């Protein structure tokens, strides 16, 4: 390693001095982004647009008056144009490039699909390409980090290096990471990997027509998606069932089968449902983590009255039966504007955040108190560092690891809780797809050929929650040098050691 240590250059100057690796990496990143510009834009619009339209609805509901509709109109208009622009952006891997919806004429030829492939294979190809893209993209990010470490970082070793190394040799944690990436990828690329689209399949079935070959009439005919869905619903009996990996009467391929009346495509439902699960889960955990971290550091630093107050508040919250509180809140706010944002999703997320934070705060209280007793916190005080900066610089890095662990472990609970509430009819309202509702819809058909309606969402929840827990396990072991045996140097709350 030929590092010149006397340099006082900033990162920018260091990159300028040796632009090669950085340039290669940035070009690669731009190329990767350009490939999926459309999908990235669609995703951004979907998230921002959802919030904005909710906001407009809320503003209209709360403030009323003649001004608000115009604002709402502006927002809706902006949203529409944004969606159009997003749709216009080029996409290498997209529905329009690799279409899977078409019909088969009696001569066995497929019309309207990618290269005349069977819809099954066209769809599979698209999914494979999307996941391939995701993993290549992540690998490129990892390469960027390596390039930074090898060429631009001034320190030749940091405690983080050990953590990364330990996580890389943790198979269970890596399994969790892969599951989480697949789940997040499913949510992010829902419109691309679904056999159908959300608009067509769930929100606006009547507005779309599809072509199919009517063997009775011997000709290609058109039918509205709503009609087609009704006729391909899974009702549990042999003739009224579209199960796993099957085509319906309209030559549409359903990898996970269809739902009950109207028979929407289950995979599309699940992919879009992953979005809502991820959104509720991450917002709830984000709120809980922010509360837990902030209060944890304040209570550990100031102790005394601050500590007592938070103990009291968290005890109060913990003494409430959380499921009942959540149901009550869903009921009470069901007609309130707060309950309308994301069809109840935001309300649920906020409530979950509040219910989850006491436990999380308690979990990090020990580590926070421990790090607050370290002499470097005293040292910071002795040269007059502000308490907020002391907490951020000298305490937060030590509890961040715990927050990551508890966050990834609890997000599964939120996903289960949301599904559970939706199953019971609270929580997230139709037409927003939620896995719990699919389970609830299929409940009556578990013993029939339409078992897939309940079982697949249920299994997927189990896999995703296990994945998040495995990732949490991996992070915990990576943080904790003790887990490795011989290396007791870096890590959370390192103790002892000596001269």
């Amino acid at each position, binding site marked *: 390693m030929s590092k010149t240590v006397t340099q006082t250059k900033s990162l920018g100057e260091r990159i300028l001095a040796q632009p090669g690796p950085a340039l290669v990496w940035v070009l690669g990143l731009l190329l990767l982004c350009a490939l999926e510009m459309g999908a990235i834009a669609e995703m951004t619009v979907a998230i921002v647009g959802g919030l904005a339209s909710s906001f407009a609805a809320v503003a209209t509901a709360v403030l009323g008056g003649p001004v608000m509709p115009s604002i709402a109109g502006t927002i809706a208009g902006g949203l529409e144009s944004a969606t159009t622009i997003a749709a216009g952006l080029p996409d290498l891997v997209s529905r329009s490039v690799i279409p899977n919806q078409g019909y088969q004429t009696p001569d066995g030829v497929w019309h309207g699909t990618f290269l005349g492939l069977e819809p099954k294979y066209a769809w599979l190809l698209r999914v494979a390409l999307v996941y391939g893209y995701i993993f290549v993209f992540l690998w490129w990010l990892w390469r960027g980090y390596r390039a930074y470490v090898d060429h631009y970082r001034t320190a030749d070793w940091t405690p983080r290096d050990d953590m990364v190394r330990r996580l890389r040799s943790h198979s269970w944690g890596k399994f969790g990471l892969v599951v989480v990436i697949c789940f997040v990828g499913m949510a992010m690329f829902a419109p691309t990997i679904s056999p159908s689209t959300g608009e067509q399949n769930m929100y606006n079935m009547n507005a779309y027509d599809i072509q199919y070959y009517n063997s009775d009439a011997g000709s290609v005919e058109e039918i509205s998606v709503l009609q087609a869905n009704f006729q391909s619903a899974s009702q549990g009996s042999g003739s009224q069932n579209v199960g796993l990996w099957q085509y319906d009467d309209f030559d549409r391929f359903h990898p996970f089968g269809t739902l009950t009346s109207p028979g929407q495509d289950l995979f599309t439902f699940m992919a879009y449902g992953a979005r809502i699960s991820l959104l509720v889960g991450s917002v709830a955990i984000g709120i809980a983590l922010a509360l837990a971290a902030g209060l944890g550091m304040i209570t550990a630093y100031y102790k005394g009255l601050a500590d007592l107050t938070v103990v009291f508040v968290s005890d109060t919250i913990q003494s409430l039966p959380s499921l009942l509180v959540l149901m009550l809140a869903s009921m009470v706010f069901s007609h309130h504007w707060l309950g309308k944002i994301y069809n109840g999703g935001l309300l649920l997320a906020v409530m979950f955040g509040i219910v989850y934070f006491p436990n999380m705060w308690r979990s990090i209280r020990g580590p926070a108190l421990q790090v607050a007793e370290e002499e470097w916190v*005293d040292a910071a005080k*002795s*040269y*007059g560092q*502000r308490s907020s900066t002391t907490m951020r610089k000298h305490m937060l890095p030590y509890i961040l690891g715990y927050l990551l662990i508890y966050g990834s472990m609890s997000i599964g609970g939120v996903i289960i809780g949301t599904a559970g509430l939706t199953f019971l009819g609270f929580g997230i309202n139709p037409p927003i797809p939620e896995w719990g509702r699919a389970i609830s819809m299929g409940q009556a058909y578990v013993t029939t050929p339409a078992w897939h309606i309940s079982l697949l969402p249920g299994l997927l929840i189990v896999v995703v929650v296990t994945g998040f827990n495995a990732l949490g396990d991996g992070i915990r072991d990576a943080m904790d040098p003790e887990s490795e045996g011989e290396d007791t140097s870096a890590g959370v709350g390192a103790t002892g050691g000596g001269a």
Partner: protein
Amino acid sequence: MSELLEEDSPTRTDDGPLVEVNGLKTYYDTGGLFGSNPVKAVDGVDFAIDRGETLGLVGESGSGKTTLGRTLVQLESATEGEVLFDGTDVTTLSGSDLKNWRREAQIVFQDPESSLNHRMTIGEIIREPLDVHGWPNFSVAVNDPDDRSVSVSGDGTRAEPNDAADITVELAGAAPTIAVRDALAMTADSVDVSVSEQSSSVSVSVSVAVSKDQLRRARVRELLETVGLREEHYYRYPHQFSGGQRQRVGIARSLALEPEFVVLDEPVSALDVSVQAKILNLLDDLQSEFGLTYLFIAHDLSVVRHICDRVAVMYLGHIMEIGETEELFQNPENPYTYSLLSAIPEPDPTADRERVTLRGTPPSPRDPPSGCPFSTRCPVKIRPKEFRDVDEHTWESVETLREILREREDREMGVRDHAKALLGLETGFEDFVDVAEEVFTRNGSLDAKGVETAERTDAARIDGALDDVDPVAREPLKEAIELVLADKETQAHELLIETFESDCGEQSPEHHTVSDSGRTSYCHRHRTEFDDTAVAFDDLLSSAE
């Protein structure tokens, strides 16, 4: 660097000591809801530290020396009393005044493992104080031969009269001459000064071409070299260093803001012996290089003797003796100092020196003894007249019995004990006869005295045990034992106090001046009517032979 010292020296030879502590008390756990019984960690100390001096502070663990050090740098807030730093009472400072003062007084912690944040590089650690205080503030001193009023604008700020200015502008001559202080890694070329002179005032506008960021980095590098590390250590993490190197980093951090006063809180006790000497020499060098004033807290007496000009000996929140190091080590006046020094191992195995061992452990600072804090353990405690001649064994056993009763009174009774007491059940003193037997017999048991086991009734055992004590003390002791057996412990304790207590346990001593150099000792023995400590110890040791 020596030029720097000369430059600074005029401001550092002000009259009076740098630090003066008057009646300082630091209590923990004050102000409970239902009346409080605070821990009296520091319980009224007075001393002063001169400029450039090293004052050692020694004492057992729990004597309050670390709390005292932390109070001096305002890491703990004083309960009472004042700490005068250059004449300002720093215990009353707050807000930005306190922050500004913190530049002047820094602390080096005991454990370099814990005092450096593992997630920051060495450079970031040493740099942080500089960032906090916006160092350097480019203070500008203008030397005007005509002595007009001066205003400074631009990057610079007006230097305080007593501080060493970062930039000095000399107005004599046609063009102003600029000088930059050595601690700043820039030359006068980087400073651009424009002066506009009026008849009664001068305004100076300063612009500096070097960024503060660069100056801070350079300062950190310089500090690394000052404490004997290399500048490539800037980007390393504490885990990559040995204990001694980490302590050097801690020292560099405390010196970053150029303080005048540094509290060294056992800076070498966590280090290997081979490294200790290096760190001590470094501290010594730094003191002479920067004219620092040290408060050196330690429990290793040989280290203190090596490095300190004066020593203060602390016990239970009080300073027992304070004076010149050599004098105090050669000829300790306070019984506590005497006992402490006697615990230093003698390198010569043939030397036959009697060693004084202290009985028991220090009392709880939550409930210190009345009178002299050392009275419960003092080997040469003054005795009441009638017991002045009793033998050593008798006196020792009386003191032990008092200690036992005292500890039992201090002991907090648990819920079960309270319940037992309410129900009239015994609360654990059923074995008191055993205790008495052990305390009063010379070899700890009656076995050797031929008292048959069968004959050992309680009364017989007590009589047998008291057989070994001086007849003068026998009667009150017997009465006290019987009181305890009758479950009247408090009365028993009171009886013992009344009979055997002297001034030591009843009145606080005064700080007697015991030598020409101004050494003081906190002990009743310095009153004219009593024997001096050395004499008393001689008696004690000769009687033990």
